């Protein structure tokens, strides 16, 4: 089907009659559990442009990413689901359960093959398919099946983008990211634990309006992950003056001085928290007095204590091989490869940074 064709046009081009088209509409009404009286209206709607279909799969996740989606002030989740997209599968929000839910997913995949956007939150455990199933199907099988017909994949949250907390040392379930398993589709990573609400909808809007956004070396859209939090932080001038909070609730903390010495990971974290802020621009962690955890970076869970000034990750390169040993050689090799990749990428970005280094950097 060419991009601009409506379903009605496409069917007619394929020689399907008006009568056949109406039969199709009746089937659609039945699929949506709508009364037959709705068929003419559906036929009319199908003659017009359709909303892009989105299928959202949730694997090893905590639903924080979906909660974040509902906090987006623009576009709002209600604008999205009523006006912009057709959210055809989403565990937390969809009305149908069980067979009805799975039928809706399969119907959408078939009907919108090659065109739907696949959103994934949560990591995928590969040590044992029984570690996470939906409708009796393993996460890996469901991802592979849904990815095949997708136009593009958006990995929402640090778990889907980088493996996240399930992959933190020692990765007990062999959790991997979407890009560890899918190599032949465009993937946009939208990390964060969770991602900022308007960043989730912003990336989606960008994709639907302008196509794939420009990405950094970790697959993150530059529009939201192009600068470090430190470089955009409103407390940066105090850093430059050498004024730091030494502990919580001291004079410096009350006056809004730099939280670097309390462990702030802002200097090595690329995200829009300091500019876009959270919850309709209300605040962000540093503004509320807490150091940045670094949650949009790979392996941030293993980058040392949240309250220690920046340091290199402490993880062991062989951290998962013990667990993978019992789960088969193939899975073990895959996990080891993931670990090597993450270890090297984390080392690149979590270099030991001292105040002196940062001062040098800011002066140069």
């Amino acid at each position, binding site marked *: 089907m060419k991009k601009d064709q409506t379903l009605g046009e496409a069917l007619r081009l394929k020689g399907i009659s008006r009568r056949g088209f109406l039969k199709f509409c009746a089937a659609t009404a039945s*699929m949506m559990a*709508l*009364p037959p009286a*709705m068929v003419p*209206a559906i036929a009319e709607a*199908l003659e017009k442009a359709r*909303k892009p*279909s989105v299928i959202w799969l949730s694997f*090893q996740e*905590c*639903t*924080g990413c979906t*909660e974040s989606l509902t906090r987006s002030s623009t576009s709002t989740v209600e604008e999205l689901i009523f006006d912009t997209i*057709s*959210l*055809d599968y989403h565990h*937390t*929000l*969809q*009305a149908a*359960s*069980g*067979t*009805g*839910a799975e039928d809706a997913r399969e*119907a959408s995949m078939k009907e919108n093959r090659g065109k739907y956007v696949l959103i994934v939150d949560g990591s995928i455990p590969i040590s044992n*398919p*029984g*570690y996470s*199933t*939906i409708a009796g199907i393993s996460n890996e099988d469901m991802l592979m099946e849904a990815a095949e017909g997708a136009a593009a994949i958006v990995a929402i949250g640090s778990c889907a983008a980088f493996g996240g*907390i*399930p992959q933190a*040392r020692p*990765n*007990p*379930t062999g*959790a991997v990211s979407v890009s560890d398993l899918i190599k032949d589709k465009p993937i946009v990573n939208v990390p964060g*634990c*969770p991602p900022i609400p308007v960043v989730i909808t912003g990336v989606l809007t960008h994709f639907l309006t302008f196509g794939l956004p420009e990405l950094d070396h970790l697959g993150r859209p530059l529009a939201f992950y192009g600068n470090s939090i430190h470089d955009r932080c*409103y407390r940066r001038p105090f850093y430059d003056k050498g004024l730091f909070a030494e*502990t*919580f*609730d001291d004079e410096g*903390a*009350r*006056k809004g001085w730099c939280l670097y010495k309390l462990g702030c990971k802002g200097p090595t974290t690329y995200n829009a928290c300091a500019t876009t802020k*959270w*919850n*309709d621009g*209300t605040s*962000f*962690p*540093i503004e509320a*007095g*807490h150091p940045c*955890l670094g949650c949009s970076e790979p392996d941030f869970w293993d980058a040392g204590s*949240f309250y220690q000034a920046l340091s290199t990750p402490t993880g062991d390169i062989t951290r998962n091989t*013990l667990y993978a*040993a019992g789960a088969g050689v193939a899975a073990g090799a895959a996990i080891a490869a993931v670990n090597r990749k993450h270890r090297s990428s984390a080392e690149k970005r979590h270099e030991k940074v001292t105040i002196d280094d940062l001062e040098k950097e800011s002066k140069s």
Partner: protein
Amino acid sequence: MNERVVVDPITRIEGHLRIEAQMDDDRIAQAWSSGTMVRGIEIILRGRDPRDAWAFAQRICGVCTLVHGIASVRAVENALDYEIPANAQLIRNLMIAAQYVHDHVMHFYHLHALDWVDVVSGLDADPAATAELAQSLSNWPKSSPGYFSDMKKKLKNFVEAGQLGIFAKAYWGHPAYKLPPEANLMAVSHYLEALSWQRDVARLHAIFGGKNPHPNFLVGGVPSPIDLNSDSAINAKRLSQVQDIIRKMQEFVDQVYVPDTLAIAGFYKDWGGRGEGVGNFLTYGDFPEKGMSDPSSYLIPSGVILNRDLSTIHDVDMNAADQIQEYVAHSWYKYSGGKEQGLHPYDGETELNYTGPKPPYEHLDVEQSYSWLKSPRWKGQPMEVGPLARVLMLYAKGHEQTQELVGHTLKTLDIPVEALFSTLGRTAARTLETKIIADNMQVWFDNLIANIKAGDTRTFNEVLWEPSTWPGQARGVGFMEAPRGALAHWIVIENQKIANYQAVVPSTWNAGPRDTEGQPGPYEAALEDNHVLHDPEQPVEILRTIHSFDPCIACAVHVTDPNGEELVKVKVR
């Protein structure tokens, strides 16, 4: 029809839940509840800095997004005997309460409502009659005929576009839906309004914790300092924002949530006669006025009710080895002493052991292990936790507002007190406690203002922040009443690191499988209480009762390393 009905995924919940029901003709004879996802956060917590634990534990769940953070900092503080300033206690109370109000309203409108509300039927509503109905219930300003006319048009355009999205393949037109079209249109309108409202009131967490979901916490206090002369602390502007949010919460609860619950319940009174569960109820207590060490100052008391007997409240001891225990007879875990025994969380010993069918599978073998959740028991008894347990506890202990609200509800609906022990009672209790907690937010906020006026602005106690000040060994329990029920984390600290970390969470109490004695958990027992399915392909009856518990199944995690050494565990809602 003696078939096995399977509902997987159960949608409109947090996490991955599967229900299998053995039918006896059209009636559910037996039901089994299975959590189908495991992550391993427990093993991940081991060896970490205990001050970091809240951030890890919080990721157990992003819906009840602060509760594991609170339980975690309380566990560390309990282990170290670490007092926090009065203001920190009040700010935590406000944040926990905000979570309740936000979470319960979202559960009602976005997760539970579609079990009772037929979206498509709203197309037949008369906007003027809908306005009349809404105005008869409350003074909520968005109740005009013009407003509902617009909403109906929006709904019509959406349905006629032929892409129902999240509303596709649902149960519209099912005879179990009893609301008239006008009530359906009103409820759909409030579904949308609640989406907008929740976005606004979630800002309270951003003010004190920097963001929502997953706001920030701190062992020893709260991260946000108070300074009326600073542009980067809790100042008069921030406090007035908080006051504004509390007011908006109370308005929505009083004028929309409570009236809608009563109005909708009026059409479903028969649901006061099914879905009871186990008849035993457990609370740990929460919302201290004077710190966690003084249970007499809690708004919600702790206790156990057995066999519906409200006249006797049993005491709960979190540390007694023979009270809270976990069983794995039907869970995918091993115990070295055999699968039959029960273990207190401090003695917890667990090993991941998936013995279920190889995916893809059609049915679980319910005679063997069938869930990633364990079966927690109090003195061997299954317990229901959550809003109904709390409302019953408040009621039994003579809390005046609770008694008034319960009395008013029973009178309005014209149902007997026994109807509380049901699917309907559980859902009503959630609404009533939301009002009680929203009202108390004003009290805590006023106390915070009074402290600041009196010159007390402390939010953090520095004395035990440095791990070098800690004893070599310490252990403690942090507990709270999460929106979904009694939650506790047990922590063992050795040489400034986490040696053991365990959580027993609300949805494990409610959703856990059968125990060694074959006693079903509350979900299972509730489904076995008087459920007739009109059409197994459209199991709306199962969804009503399961959703009345507000499931939150993010994962259940108990792991031992390959050498057999016991590791930390976190069981997740």
